[in-house]
């Protein structure tokens, strides 16, 4: 055998090995999760709607991931902070991911909540399952007909609230952007309590998810005056969005809050997750959210599914965090006002 021939064989072997190696890598990337068990951390209570979503979607993610199982584990506490902290410190092998309300985490971080160890912008976002626009409603008997009436109220707008949750911060930013006086009345027990306060006229208005207020709106007990979301709500084309009614700097701030809200129920992983795991998980989440079986389940349970790609979400979080720095003083002021 000549030297050239030997060389050719070696080159050939190397090429075959390289090809095989390449195939093997390609193989391992799509098989990253084959036969594995993934833990899905839920920083929420087992009886809430977040858990209902997670339990419904988890089997479909397992199916599209080729994983043995996606186990849902509730880890509630500290308004989601306990579970998020856990994910922040977990081994980033992609075998542990989480699902919760992203705005809650971002706002907890921005407002400097106790015990926050994570940086919400550094999480790896894997896809959004659902989002729902929120709505500012006033009482059916209230004199306030439009958002302009709120601006020209001539007295503070009384806002019954459960405390420093997402809607509280949203309201604070709205008041700043639209330049109206806000009087937040904290201490209410929950959505039912604040809704009743608004219907009674004890408070002027509050923010809820659209579906929570629909029955009241249809019965005339409540009146929607502002949508806090990407677009006007189907069925209520006369209710403007918050971004439409604000200008200049205020618009930017409101846009940041809206961006945050639109990320609502999302899957995310710890920082430093391997690239193979990220791409496998992102496509599995996307495929799961389009699975006809899942869509049928969701319809049966009355849950909406509005998917968004993880890759599309990631830059939005950066955007939120950047704009968030402007919101921080507003948030701090709102919290100081209820001390």
């Amino acid at each position: 055998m000549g030297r050239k021939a030997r060389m050719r064989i070696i080159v050939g072997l190397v090429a075959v090995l390289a090809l095989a190696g390449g195939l093997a890598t390609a193989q391992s990337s799509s098989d990253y999760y084959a036969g594995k068990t993934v833990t899905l951390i839920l920083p929420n209570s087992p009886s809430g709607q977040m858990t209902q979503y997670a339990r419904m979607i988890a089997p479909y993610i397992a199916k599209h991931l080729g994983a043995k199982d996606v186990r849902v584990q509730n880890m509630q506490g500290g308004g989601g902070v306990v579970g998020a902290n856990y994910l922040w410190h977990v081994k980033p092998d992609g075998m542990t991911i989480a699902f919760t309300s992203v705005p809650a985490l971002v706002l907890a971080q921005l407002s400097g909540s106790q015990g926050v160890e994570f940086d919400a912008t550094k999480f790896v976002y894997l896809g959004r399952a659902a989002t729902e626009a929120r709505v500012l409603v006033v009482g059916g008997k209230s004199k306030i007909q439009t958002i302009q009436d709120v601006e020209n109220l001539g007295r503070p707008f009384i806002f019954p609230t459960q405390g420093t949750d997402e809607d509280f911060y949203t309201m604070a930013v709205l008041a700043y952007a639209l330049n109206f006086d806000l009087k937040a009345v904290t201490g209410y027990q929950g959505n039912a309590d604040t809704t009743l306060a608004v219907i009674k006229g004890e408070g002027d208005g509050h923010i809820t998810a659209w579906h929570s207020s629909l029955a009241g709106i249809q019965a005339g007990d409540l009146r929607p005056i502002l949508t806090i979301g990407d677009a006007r709500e189907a069925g209520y084309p006369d209710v403007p969005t918050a971004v439409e009614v604000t200008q200049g700097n205020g618009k930017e701030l409101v846009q940041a809050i809206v961006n945050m809200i639109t990320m609502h129920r999302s899957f995310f992983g710890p920082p430093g997750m391997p690239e193979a795991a990220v791409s496998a998980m992102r496509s599995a989440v996307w495929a799961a959210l389009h699975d006809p079986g899942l869509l049928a389940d969701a319809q049966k349970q009355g849950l909406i599914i509005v998917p968004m790609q993880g890759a599309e979400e990631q830059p939005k979080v950066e955007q939120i965090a950047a704009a968030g720095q402007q919101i921080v003083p507003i948030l701090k002021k709102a919290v100081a006002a209820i001390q």
Partner: protein
Amino acid sequence: MSRRAQENVLALAIAAILIAVIVISFHYGPRARLVPIPVAAFSLILVLAQLVVQNTGSPDDLHVDVLEMLTRRSAREGVASTAAATRQRPASEHPPGTRARREAIAFTLLAVLLGLVLLLGPIVGIFLFVLGYGGAVGRMRWSSALMLSLGVSGVLYLLFVVLLNTQMYHGILPGPL
């Protein structure tokens, strides 16, 4: 320690907690401390009153206090509560020393159960505790203690893990379950 001395130690401990609460509360905003400080201060005054009451009357009068005299709760009720108090104090069954020792054992057992649960998780911890308790403390035959502990942890496992789908805590040491 006499009953009165024990009562005094307890009252002083409560007073210390209440003072700590008041001091800590002053770090909070005016609305956050609006309710806690008056509640703690009022309780503190009551503790001081209690200290005075329990150190001025005769030892038998430990259950009688000023407010009771002020509101003049009926004599009949006094009889009932004394009767209840005697019933609650079966110390006569054991000499006082035995009682203190049994209390020490009871607290230790509680600590052992807590330790086992923290180390091995509820199911395994409970299994070992019931087994050990039945055999060593309850003086059952070991075979029946084993039956009891298997039964208890088995039923709890079925109810909580299988039926209620509780996510189990597996303890600091890795447990077999």
